[in-house]
């Protein structure tokens, strides 16, 4: 089969630049898996209890796992990992999914922490550092798990972090795998004892590495029942991979069964199906499945099937995903035929509403295509009842169909299909993917995603429309879905429109569909998912298939004889549709209403959507890319992009987007006025929208400041915002004193800074406060032995400093605690930091993991209400109170005594680079200083991650560190400061 090759390609493309291509996909998958906790939670009514066992189990597994790993751990830590006989330690270790596991070992060494637990000397890493944060997370999770309205389902945020921290990659993978297994197995095993499953896992490392190959071999492998329970059977030692039979319902109603390896990705199955169908123009099609809530989900080709379907059956449907606006541009009749079949389904099921006349006309073309010319003798009236032309098929309709059928005499099947499509494509709901939602007033509406943009329906009426060129940003957060609208001619400000979906997954689903449709229909080529160098939180999801432009291009290159295919008797179709519910928009929405009614209740606003605390889940932003097939509106694209550059703005707009009821405006909207109603003036007019909450926050702080974590309130919204600063320092000469010696005291000051920072985060790039830092200093060698106290780098680095650059003031202490604000943004080019490395020809390379300097960990927890200070007070009663919890944790390399003095040196150059990605803002400051004849380059990166606590921040941080290291391989991370801020918003009713 041609599959393996394709798979490989996919993996490659999907993962951007990877040094170890084979590993990447797995990691990703694992990550994904890791982010599927909801399942677990859903299943266990008592989240709190259920949490513990799995972890323990995982921990227990780990040692074994490690033993099984063929590849020896190079890091000392790995070897230090507990042996199977010491479960407690293991479990402790396991528990930490926090950042420590990503940190280089030396950073994990606790130098002088009160919180350390000396007892665990052999495996001290991770545990102490993490514990707090981890626990916090756990708590949060539990809380959210408690929430009645499908909180579990909401927590499916998929964070695909494709890269791993370099340190202990293997171990990590194992760990993750363990975790994943945990989760899977937990379902059945339900307890900590996962040992039985262990066997399967044997040899998995190798298997993974050759996953593509595996798939090739699949055919030969044993067949396993669709049920996952098979996974637990102990006897599969002999077989390395498990096969699962997938059932795919094709468009003609027939079933296609196909055996796939259990870990196969979606595209494998998809390609199998396409091959079976002999379909070449496959870009318009996809596989879908029903999730537990009976919602149709698209199978992501780039991800493992198993991860996506979860507990559901391996039952799929082959469907049209992107309805070509002009089917006549398709090259092959076969493709058009399949599209016809899809549309016939859509029509018969009511998803594609049409009038009586259209039903009759389309039905007559369908007849002509399948049966050919009407034969008066052969075709009696009853022949027609095998076909379903409409949701409610009447005799009258059938007669009309026959009458029209007669008039198509002489038309070939292909012509009939073409005519069918020509008429079908004009239908207003053609290719519109509908999603139930509520507006901020709680009114039921439908979101219709289509080739041209996003349509908003109330019942059957179109009440608004946002063409893709009008949409600047698409995002979802928790169960809310937002679009940011380009300001109209007369408007000054962008506005954000928010919708409430039944749950988090629905929000994500519509977001994804939007991203996909936009990419497919508007872009010339798909966006690269991981452009950003640094942290990307939330979903990194991007449409990875071909765009319509590419698909058309490819179609023109099709060079094969017209494939023969048989147009099936539609008997099967009608049968398959029997179960399909007749859906018309209004009915549907009502049904959903009642079904999901409990969730959304009457509360429409962001803050009131549940009776209990809600955690703000993933915040995902999809920013329109610039290589659009532009319409006139796009002229100002660049400007707009600038505007939206900052995270803070984003965040602000989100916060404003689903705000308090504003009766006057919304009332209007109720009447269906799109212009006036749906919009909220966003960032530009903050006086109204943003100041309100702030005022309230202040109030809140006054009254409840002492207890910021009053979670007892019925409705609490937590927003977790994370700021990460990664600071890298390269010294040409190791001697240069790095003023790194951040003590706890300094950290404190940092964190206090951070409070003001928090505010800064809400504004555009104010680089001022470095809350979390990862500083890399050249104090360590490549060698594994860390010269802890030896400031001199082993390598004799010639200060290849691009010396004669302007030497500016000395006050530019590069390592100062607040280096960022001071750094004059001299060069604003978007050069990537690594350029700097080029400048400094020889820098000592230091691998973080190799040296094990002591780590100083400091932690500060500050509770503040961030906004109160600067915002005008406007008293409102209906605004959420926001408490902010600030926590700063610093990991830093031990300072070499010689370095500590903080001699300022002479600043040679300094530059500030700011880049944005999805929900991160990265500010990079590069300063070069001359100190005592030595040049030192210090890079400090500050990364602000905005997202909710659901995101695996640790993961993200780890990636940031890794990326930083990759960019500057010859530098070392000297300090990592994690500053975590949590907002607790409570509604005061």
């Amino acid at each position, binding site marked *: 089969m041609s599959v393996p090759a394709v798979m490989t390609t996919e993996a490659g493309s999907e993962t951007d630049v990877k040094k170890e291509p084979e590993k990447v996909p797995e990691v990703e998958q694992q990550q994904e898996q890791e982010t599927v906790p909801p399942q677990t939670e859903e299943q266990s009514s008592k989240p709190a209890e259920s949490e513990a066992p799995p972890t323990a189990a995982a921990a227990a597994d780990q040692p074994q796992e490690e033993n099984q790993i063929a590849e020896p751990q190079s890091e000392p830590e790995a070897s230090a990992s507990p042996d199977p006989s010491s479960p407690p330690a293991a479990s402790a270790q396991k528990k930490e999914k926090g950042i420590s596991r990503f940190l280089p070992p030396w950073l994990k060494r606790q130098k002088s922490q009160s919180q350390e637990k000396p007892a665990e000397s052999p495996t001290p890493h991770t545990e102490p550092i993490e514990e707090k944060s981890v626990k916090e997370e756990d708590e949060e999770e539990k809380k959210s798990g408690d929430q009645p309205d499908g909180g579990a389902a909401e927590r499916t945020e998929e964070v695909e972090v494709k890269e791993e921290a370099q340190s202990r990659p293997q171990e990590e993978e194992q760990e993750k795998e363990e975790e994943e297994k945990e989760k899977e197995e937990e379902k059945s095993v339900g307890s900590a004892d996962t040992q039985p499953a262990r066997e399967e896992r044997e040899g998995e490392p190798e298997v993974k590495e050759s996953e593509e190959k595996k798939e090739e071999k699949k055919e030969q492998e044993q067949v396993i029942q669709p049920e996952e329970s098979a996974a637990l059977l102990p006897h599969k030692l002999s077989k390395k991979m498990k096969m699962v039979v997938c059932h795919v319902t094709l468009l003609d109603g027939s079933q296609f069964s196909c055996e796939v390896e259990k870990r196969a990705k979606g595209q494998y199955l998809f390609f199998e199906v396409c091959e079976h169908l002999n379909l070449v123009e496959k870009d318009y099609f996809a596989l879908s499945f029903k999730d537990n809530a009976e919602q149709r989900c698209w199978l992501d080709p780039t991800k493992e099937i198993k991860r996506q379907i979860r507990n559901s059956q391996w039952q799929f449907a082959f469907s049209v995903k992107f309805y070509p606006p002009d089917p006549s541009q398709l090259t092959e009749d076969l493709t058009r035929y399949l599209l016809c079949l899809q549309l016939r389904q859509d029509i018969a099921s009511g998803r594609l*509403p*049409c*009038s*009586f*006349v*259209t039903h009759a006309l389309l039905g007559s073309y369908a007849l002509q295509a399948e049966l050919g010319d009407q034969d008066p003798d052969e075709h009696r009236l009853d022949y027609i009842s095998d076909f379903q032309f409409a949701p409610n098929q009447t005799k009258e309709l059938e007669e009309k169909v026959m009458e029209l059928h007669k008039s198509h005499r002489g038309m070939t099947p292909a012509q009939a299909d073409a005519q069918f499509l020509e008429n079908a494509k*004009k*239908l*207003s709901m053609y290719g519109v993917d509908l999603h139930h939602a509520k507006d901020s007033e709680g009114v039921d509406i439908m979101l219709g995603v289509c080739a*041209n943009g996003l349509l908003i329906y*109330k*019942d*059957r*009426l*179109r*009440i*608004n*429309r946002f*063409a893709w060129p*009008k949409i600047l940003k698409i995002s979802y957060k928790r169960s809310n879905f937002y679009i940011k609208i380009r300001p*109209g001619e007369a408007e000054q400000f962008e506005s954000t429109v928010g919708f409430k979906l039944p749950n988090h997954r629905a929000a994500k689903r519509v977001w994804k569909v939007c991203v996909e449709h936009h990419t497919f229909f508007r872009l010339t080529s798909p966006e690269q998912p991981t452009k950003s160098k640094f942290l990307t939180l939330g979903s990194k999801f991007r449409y990875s298939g071909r765009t319509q432009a590419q698909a058309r291009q490819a179609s023109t290159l099709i060079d094969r004889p017209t494939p023969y295919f048989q147009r099936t008797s539609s008997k099967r179709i009608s049968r398959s549709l029997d179960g399909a519910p007749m859906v*018309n928009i*209004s009915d549907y929405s009502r049904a959903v209403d009642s079904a999901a009614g409990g969730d959304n209740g009457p509360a429409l606003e962001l803050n009131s959507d549940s009776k209990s605390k809600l955690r703000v889940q993933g915040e995902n932003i999809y920013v329109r890319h610039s290589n659009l097939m532009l319409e006139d509106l796009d002229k100002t694209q660049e400007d707009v992009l600038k505007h939206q550059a900052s995270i803070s703005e984003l965040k602000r707009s989100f916060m404003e987007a689903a705000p308090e009821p504003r009766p006057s405006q919304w009332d*209007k909207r109720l*009447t*269906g*006025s*799109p*212009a*006036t109603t749906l919009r909220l003036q966003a960032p530009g007019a903050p006086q109204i929208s943003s100041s309100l909450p702030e005022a309230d926050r202040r109030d809140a702080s006054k009254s409840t400041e002492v207890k910021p974590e009053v979670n007892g309130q019925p409705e609490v919204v937590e927003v977790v915002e994370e700021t990460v600063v990664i600071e890298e320092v390269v010294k040409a000469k190791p001697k240069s004193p790095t003023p790194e010696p951040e003590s706890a005291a300094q950290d404190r000051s940092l964190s206090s800074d951070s409070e003001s920072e928090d505010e800064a985060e809400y504004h555009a790039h104010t680089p001022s406060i470095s809350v979390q830092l990862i500083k890399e200093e050249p104090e360590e060698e490549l060698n594994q032995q860390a010269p802890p106290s030896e400031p001199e780098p082993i390598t004799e680095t010639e200060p290849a400093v691009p010396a004669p650059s302007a030497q500016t003031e000395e006050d530019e202490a590069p390592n100062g605690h607040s280096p960022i604000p001071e750094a004059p943004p001299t060069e604003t080019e978007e050069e990537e930091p690594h350029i700097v490395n080029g400048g400094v020809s020889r820098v000592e390379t230091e691998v973080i993991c190799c040296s094990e300097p002591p780590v100083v960990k400091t932690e500060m927890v500050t509770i503040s209400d961030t906004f109160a200070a600067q915002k005008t007070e406007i008293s409102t009663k209906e605004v959420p109170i926001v408490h902010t919890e600030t926590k700063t944790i610093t990991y830093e390399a031990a300072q070499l005594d010689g370095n500590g003095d903080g001699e300022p040196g002479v600043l040679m150059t300094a530059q500030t680079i700011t880049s944005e990605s999805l929900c991160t803002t990265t500010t990079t400051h590069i300063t070069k200083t001359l100190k005592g004849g030595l040049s030192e380059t210090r890079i400090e990166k500050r990364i602000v991650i905005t997202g909710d606590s659901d995101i695996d921040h640790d993961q993200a941080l780890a990636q940031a560190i890794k990326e930083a290291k990759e960019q500057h391989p010859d530098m070392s991370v000297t300090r990592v400061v994690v500053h975590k801020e949590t907002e607790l918003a409570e509604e005061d009713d």
Partner: protein
Amino acid sequence: MSDFGKYTHAIMRAMPASLSTAALRSDNVSPVDPLGVQREFDHYVSVLRDRLGLQVVMLPADEELPDCVFVEDTAVVCGSTALITRPGAPSRRSETVAMKGALTELGLNIVEMNDELATMDGGDVLFTGKEFFVGLSKRTNQRGAEILANTFKDYAVSTIPVEEGLHLKSFCSMAGPNLIAIGSSDAAQKALKVIQQMSDCKYEKLTVPDDRAANCVYMNLPGKGDVLLHCTPEVFPESTKVFERLKSHMLIPVSNQEKMKVDGALTCLSVLLRI
């Protein structure tokens, strides 16, 4: 679609004498000249029947229904389906009876708006050939629009708030297959913006200085091509000049001065259909 404007029949209703005295009106300033209004009406009929060759079905006047001459409000016809409306003004509800009878006789599929919560005046329904826009006005509500959407399922139906004027078509109408005539008032321009935003189609616009002049009657008739009934230079000189720029259209000025006093526009007088 390509059939847009290709009418064969026009349903009209004779003018009751009570029109000049009892018709609903939003502006009480000037009295209606009974003779003048009849003269206008007769001219209109003769243009349709004699000049353009349409089959004119003339319903008898009903003195109890002073507004009955404005048949447009009582039915929306698209293709072979007719939606009998439920006029927003209670006094006009019975006007639909005669209309329903006529349409039934002509063989159309009749859909009636029976929902007591729904109201709709045909004057709020703008059909562009590709989609519907329904003005939400004093006379037409959301429910009415929903029923229209359910009746004409092939088409997108978008709602447009009408903040000023009686009907959506009080300040706009189709002047060609892809051409919207629109008034210059803020309300009209605002509505146009909404229309443009809501639509996947890109309509051209013909902006006329006077809102009322923006109501014109477009037809596409065999042998005549694009035909446009529009305001007269005597009443709206500037707007007429705008229409006169439509070189490819057969332009027929039709006076409507008197009926305008009772909110009657050119489109109000007929229901056009193709059989």
